[in-house]
């Protein structure tokens, strides 16, 4: 409590000394304008000015940022105003502190999510490293949030066989993203002896893993596995509730491939393996459904319209035309496409 001597009744003085002891409050006795200004510049300091000046001087002090201006000639009123002003100021400060703490937590959470998103992307295959004579790749991966319930894989199992899958775990965000990690780690296309496993068997195992996982609410996921035999140009497919892959032959119409069985994680199911023959120039697209009305039909239609472009440009053009993004550039649902083209004759 600083300032020149001013006649202050003892009870008011006692109250002022009490609040002046709070670190967030300062009491100034009859402060000069520049002194007041020096203190009020700090937003988190509540300044109580005690002044016996004119109404104009008191108004100027309030204008300058004083929390309250008290007149010692009316001590009873001054004491009430002092308590009210200090109580309000301190609760406002507490609220601001809580908000700051929340902001800090949100920032930390956001940093974690960005890291999770980077990690999730790091699982995805680098398609340029997979290119070989006879096959080209393209992909699109547009999560709705930082992290996604979608994932995909492309992996050579041996010089002739390529494993491809897309998966769509239920929901969005961290929960769905962790499910993709569970399914990715449980995907075993090759048995212990190094032999290729039947795609239906591989998908059935994923279903078992999901149903056996000790999760509060057993979640579901859609999964489509395609095993390419490059020399034979055949694709063996097993599909758990996922949109059927689309084959686009050069000059021909798009056609859905294989069939689908039950979503993963619902009931024990026999997952059928469908074998389809491909031809040079064929492009095959595995894709998640998205939730946007008309998305499925629109995307396949747009693929056909953009057929004359290179594979990656075709994919970009078709997606650009088929999906809408919100103000933040996010799709309404996670969008994932994995595409291959069989080149050569």
């Amino acid at each position, binding site marked *: 409590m600083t300032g020149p001597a001013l006649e202050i009744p003892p009870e008011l003085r006692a109250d002022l000394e009490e609040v002046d002891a709070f670190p967030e409050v300062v009491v100034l006795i009859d402060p000069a304008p520049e002194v007041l200004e020096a203190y009020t510049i700090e937003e988190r300091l509540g300044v109580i000015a005690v002044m016996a000046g004119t109404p104009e001087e008191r108004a100027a002090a309030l204008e300058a940022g004083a929390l309250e201006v008290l007149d010692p000639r009316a001590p009873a009123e001054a004491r009430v105003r002092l308590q009210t002003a200090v109580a309000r100021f301190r609760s406002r400060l507490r609220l601001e502190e809580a908000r700051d703490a929340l902001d800090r937590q949100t920032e930390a959470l956001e940093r974690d999510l960005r890291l999770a998103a980077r990690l999730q992307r790091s699982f995805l295959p680098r398609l340029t490293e997979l290119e070989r004579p006879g096959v080209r790749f393209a992909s699109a991966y547009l999560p709705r949030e930082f992290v996604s*319930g979608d994932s995909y894989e492309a992996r050579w199992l041996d010089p002739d066989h390529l494993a491809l899958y897309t998966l*769509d775990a*239920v*929901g*969005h965000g961290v929960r769905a993203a962790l499910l993709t990690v569970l399914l990715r780690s449980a995907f075993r296309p090759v048995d212990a002896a190094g032999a290729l496993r039947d795609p239906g068997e591989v998908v059935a195992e994923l279903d078992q893993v999901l149903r056996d996982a000790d999760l509060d*609410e*057993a*979640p*579901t996921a*859609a999964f489509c596995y395609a095993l390419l035999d490059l020399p034979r140009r055949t694709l063996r497919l097993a599909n758990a*509730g*996922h*949109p*059927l892959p689309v084959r686009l032959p050069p000059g021909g119409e798009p056609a859905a491939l294989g069939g*689908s*069985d*039950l*979503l993963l*994680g*619902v*009931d024990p*199911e026999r997952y059928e393996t469908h074998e389809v023959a491909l031809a040079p120039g064929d492009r095959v697209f595995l894709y998640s*459904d998205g*939730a946007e*009305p*008309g998305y*499925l039909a629109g995307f396949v239609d747009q693929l056909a319209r953009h057929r004359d472009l290179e594979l990656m440009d075709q994919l970009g053009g078709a997606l650009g035309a088929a999906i809408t993004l*919100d103000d933040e550039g996010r799709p*309404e*649902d996670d969008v994932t496409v994995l595409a291959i083209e069989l080149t050569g004759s």
Partner: protein
Amino acid sequence: MPSSEPLATFERRPLASAPDGAARAELALKGRVYADVCPQLRDELTRAVEAGARELLIDATHLEQIDSAGLNEFVQLLRKLRPQGGKIVFFGLSPSIQRVFDITKLNRVMGVAASREDALGGLAS
């Protein structure tokens, strides 16, 4: 998407009990049932089950879209109902939603009927 309109609304309707006394409930889904409205959908389904319903009739006549999260709510509910002999039967699916059921094969674990009458018949069977 217009933010002023709710994505989806749910309406529970009274429904007479089955002849064997099993309590039934009917829930009408309207609009687009996406992940964002799943907590609300779950509340509605939970209330119906807490009120004793074992058999659920789902009116999808005005359902425009449903995503995997929406479908998952029904799968979770079915898990709870099945040990007690419970059932879920949908009716009034649009062709696009019918296709979702066809692809996911959830039409094998939940009933899908063409009309409300057929759905009630499906519950009775």
